[in-house]
């Protein structure tokens, strides 16, 4: 029950990055928001995996973490090629 509530809180934290993504005056702000949302989904998966006692979700979290790293890098690198 507590873990379900914690999973809910992590999702809230993930979605709380969105205002910055929409408002954020510079591109850097938006990349920061996307990065935080990526971390938030990884955390949500870990907490969900603990709550449902499904360690298979930890593997999914690992995939999400890898892809968050790759897409974050893509954001920064492809941003710089234009400059």
């Amino acid at each position, binding site marked *: *029950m507590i873990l*379900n*509530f914690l*999973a*809910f809180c992590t*999702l*809230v934290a*993930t*979605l709380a*990055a*969105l205002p910055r*993504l*929409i408002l*954020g005056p510079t*591109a850097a702000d*938006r*990349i920061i*928001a*996307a990065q935080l*949302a*990526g971390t938030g*989904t990884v955390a*949500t*998966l870990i907490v*969900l995996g603990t709550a449902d006692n499904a360690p*298979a*979700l930890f*593997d*999914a979290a*690992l*995939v*999400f973490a*890898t*892809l*968050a*790293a*790759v*897409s974050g*890098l*893509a*954001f*920064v*690198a*492809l*941003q*710089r*090629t*234009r400059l």
Partner: protein
Amino acid sequence: MSLAFDVLLAFGVVFTAAAALGTHDRVASIAGFVVTGLLVALSLVRLGAPDVALAEAAIGAGLTGALLLRSAWRLKPAESRVSPPIDRIIVALIAVCLSGALAWAVYTAPGAALYPALVSERLAESGVTNPVTAVLLNFRAWDTLLEIAVLFVALILVRIVAPAHPQPVVLGELMLPFARIVVPMCAFLAGHLLWQGASVPGGAFQAGAILAGGSLVLMLGGFAVPTPRLLSWGMMVALLGLAVFAVAALSTEALTGTLLLYPDGAAKIWILMIEALLTLSIAAMLCLLFCGMPRRPLK
């Protein structure tokens, strides 16, 4: 509590997609799209489809995001001719009706669950214990073969239309340790996903996408410059998977008399061999789709 989680997640998915599609800032739309992909993957996990969730996170969010970013600066924004408000109101009304009708139709559709019984009945002889892998590479392997062919056709289209843009980027000193950890991790994770795909969520597509992500890190970090030579090697690898799959289909036809019906008891070996080569081939194709192909100079 779990219901509140679902409601918040569904709301987040729609809201993020609206934010991504509603803005004219390129970075905001693409970042919004990537976050939408992640949230959709999360809701697919909630819907009990972790295989699809892995593929959506890896391909739908990660690689599509990178592709869109690559094109974002090459495509000029269209001249901002806004459609008249009356048109937009009509379109919005049609869209709302479409959504409502779709939701109502899907919700009230008579659920005739025909496949689960069939799949679980034959799962023991498929050679794997993950039903999704069994469907993809045994029961309906023909579809998967054609899907790889579709990927290859897209690759040929990209080759004809878009020349490669090798752009070395200098990103600073921290890139080297980052690539040194992340790229081996990607290779390791791809192998892990490939191997465990037989019994738990994972498989060739997810593994291929992760591998492509690793090589994207190499290219974006400037460690592997996509020279024409490297790209033609990539093309060879991309072809190899398709060729091996086609040869496997023909040899099963010769061995058992049916296309892609594996010989008794050897299904696991066949599936694993095909999947391993498919992983390499899918990774090569996704990479080539990202960086484009060199165009031969006209003589």
